[in-house]
């Protein structure tokens, strides 16, 4: 991306952030907060596995609920319908502290994080997710040894649930199976290569806040391998992929948050912190591939 376009995008993002910051915290489900974190990855993160250090956690689908403990804490039924992965006990009343009481659907039993994304619908039908895959990597061109684990209690949202236009493919994209192709709207996937929603989280943290008003302002995206000055701490980059048991014509698909452009995902760090830090050190700092998605 050229510098000019970068600046333009940045201004747009800042403008969007300003616009939303005056909105009330809680609002009707169909008027979701319109925001993103500052920046976006320098490029779409896709391609063959095995060239970038990573560790991978696969989590089965856990449950669905119209709950959102980040955006609508303590307000059950207030959110659009979400699909939850990982921690099994997530509802509107979930807190970081309560996550330790849950079990997990993840293959790594020490990952009790809560991961969720809007449900995918076709008319009244809720399309079942097969699983989620959480890739943990350094941000694009970020020095792997500088990357830190998420602090305990960090929450994040990536993507804009209120988007009316296409979001950057580097943050929100649709794809099929293991392929490199990405698109802003659901692809027509061939049989055997399931439809996926791919959400890339920020990889820079302000070093202070575990959450922020609007939930986007405490984290940001790196550019040129560097974190913005106000977000000086590189954190491991989570790319969260939801695989749906769906192929073929995507006509009529919508996300529960709105149209197909409203892709987003939420994360609450419920990892066993020592394990998360160990995996960052062993895999990311040592620059090895600790696992591949199946």
């Amino acid at each position, binding site marked *: 991306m050229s510098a000019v376009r970068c600046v333009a995008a940045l201004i747009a993002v800042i403008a969007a952030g300003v616009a939303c910051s005056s909105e009330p915290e809680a609002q009707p489900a169909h008027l979701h907060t319109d925001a993103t974190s500052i920046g976006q990855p320098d490029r779409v993160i*896709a*391609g*063959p*596995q*095995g*060239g970038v250090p990573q560790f991978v956690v696969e989590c089965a689908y856990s449950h669905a609920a119209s709950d959102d403990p980040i955006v609508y804490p303590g307000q059950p039924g207030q959110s659009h319908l979400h699909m939850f992965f990982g921690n099994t006990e997530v509802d509107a009343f979930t807190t970081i502290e309560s996550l330790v009481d849950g079990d997990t659907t993840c*293959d*790594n*039993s020490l990952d009790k994080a809560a991961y969720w994304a809007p449900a995918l619908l076709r008319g009244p039908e809720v399309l079942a997710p097969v699983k989620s895959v959480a890739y943990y990597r350094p941000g694009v061109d970020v020095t792997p040894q500088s990357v830190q684990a998420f602090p305990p209690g960090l929450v994040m949202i990536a993507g804009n649930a209120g988007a009316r236009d296409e979001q950057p493919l580097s943050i929100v994209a649709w*794809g*099929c*199976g*293991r*392929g*490199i*192709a990405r698109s802003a709207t659901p692809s027509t*996937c*061939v*049989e*055997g*290569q399931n439809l996926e929603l791919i959400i890339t989280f920020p990889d820079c943290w302000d070093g202070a806040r575990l959450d922020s008003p609007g939930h986007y302002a405490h984290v940001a995206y790196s550019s040129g391998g560097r974190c913005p000055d106000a977000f000086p701490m590189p954190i491991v980059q989570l790319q969260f992929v939801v695989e749906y*048991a769906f*192929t073929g014509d995507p006509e009529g698909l919508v996300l529960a948050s709105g149209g197909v452009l409203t892709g987003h995902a939420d994360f609450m760090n419920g990892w066993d912190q020592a394990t998360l830090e*160990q995996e960052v*050190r*062993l*895999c990311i700092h*040592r*620059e*090895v*591939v*600790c*696992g*591949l998605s*199946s």
Partner: protein
Amino acid sequence: MKRSIVAAATAVALLLAACGSERDEASTTTAAAADTSTDVSTAESVPPSVTDTMPAPDTTEGADSVINVPDDQPTIQAAVDAARPGDLILIAPGTYNEAVNVETENLTIRGLDRNEVVLDGNFELENGIRILGAGGVVVENMTAINYKRNGFFWTGVDGFRGSYLTAYRTGDYGVYAFDSMNGQLEHVYAAGSPDAGVYIGECYPCNTVLTDTVSEHNGLGYSGTNAGGNLLIVNSVFRNNRAGIVPNSGSYELCYPQRETTIVGNIVHSNNQPDTPAIDVALLAMGNGILSAGGIRNDIQRNLVYDHNKSGIGLVPFLEENPNDDLPTKDEWELTCEESKSLPLVTPEGALLWDSYENRVIGNVLEDNRQGDIIVGSAGTDVSSLGNCFAGNTFTFTQPNNLEVLAPCDATGSGDWKDGEYNVVAWLLDTPPPSVDWQTANLPALQPQENMPDAATAPAKPAIDVPYEVDLDAVTVPSKPT
């Protein structure tokens, strides 16, 4: 699983995807352990404890110490963390519920008894022993069971050796080397993985030998995505898996294509096993002995291959529906793994068909492979153009017919490739028995396996001299087990 098979069948696809130091400073405890340990240390003239005035300990054999588990350190991990490069860790018989991570190079981690030193993941832990970017590490003479991912796993290393290892009932692979080169895997027994008993992936040149191994009741006996270059699979047994030896190409991981694997002197039989755990590709590959799925320039010689529902030796395509890059050109077949990683990705339109080119199938003995002792197929490519050759094999029939006349090695072929043309796409219409949960699959009881010689006294031998030389010319076709 049925969904996947039916789904895949509608594509013209042959989807054979395979499929994946921090250390404490030497403590006085460690030094003391060296001084008091038995045969090894006394035999090696261990120097006195390190002091501030001494130069840093060198890594020659004589300077190394022995750490006993649990006598010197209570756990394998504690011993690994306390060890210095070159040290020998000796593990006493017992069950260890550990997932060990190794970051120190040139360690030798050894069980005193292969069958009685058991790492047990209890279906909760991910890997038995994981070696992360630390070269020269040896793991030998022990057993790993019930791990959610792998029994023994080297990743990103230069120099590795796994000897006298038993891996049983693991969620991904039994013994796994990824993005690693210069290795030796020997005297391995691997059973009960849905993917492969032994996997070597993403390396070229791999410079690795797999020998004296038995792999059974896995999805695949051996899998090797994008691996090759002085990679030898020799003198081993692959039996009663869904499919036997299955190297393949694909752009979903790096260092494609798969090439230059030498498969010699193995017994490959009865890989039709219906009750193993199995990933989708193992289901698709089921019933084949040695199957090159988009493999190039592999050398398949003097193996004994029998009792398969499909092929004894098959050279077939891998069709990648959603690729990450275009097909490498013939020039790019020569690039090392490192060189190829820097090539720009070119997103192709549509699917990729990875055909199997220029493989040599010579002197194998094949019998009772019910759809063809040797099979060559594609999904649209003229198979006469692929440059594979066949000579000196003992067989009943091939598909196409008379492959040794059509494409002899080092001679000009003749004949009709359409005679007995094989429809490999039809495999996609099969409905193999579904996968079985790896945690509960019916496996043969774990039998005592051969111990390494002199486990208690043999000195540490880091993996700095591997692979060991194999006299390939001396390898003959194995005789059939009785």
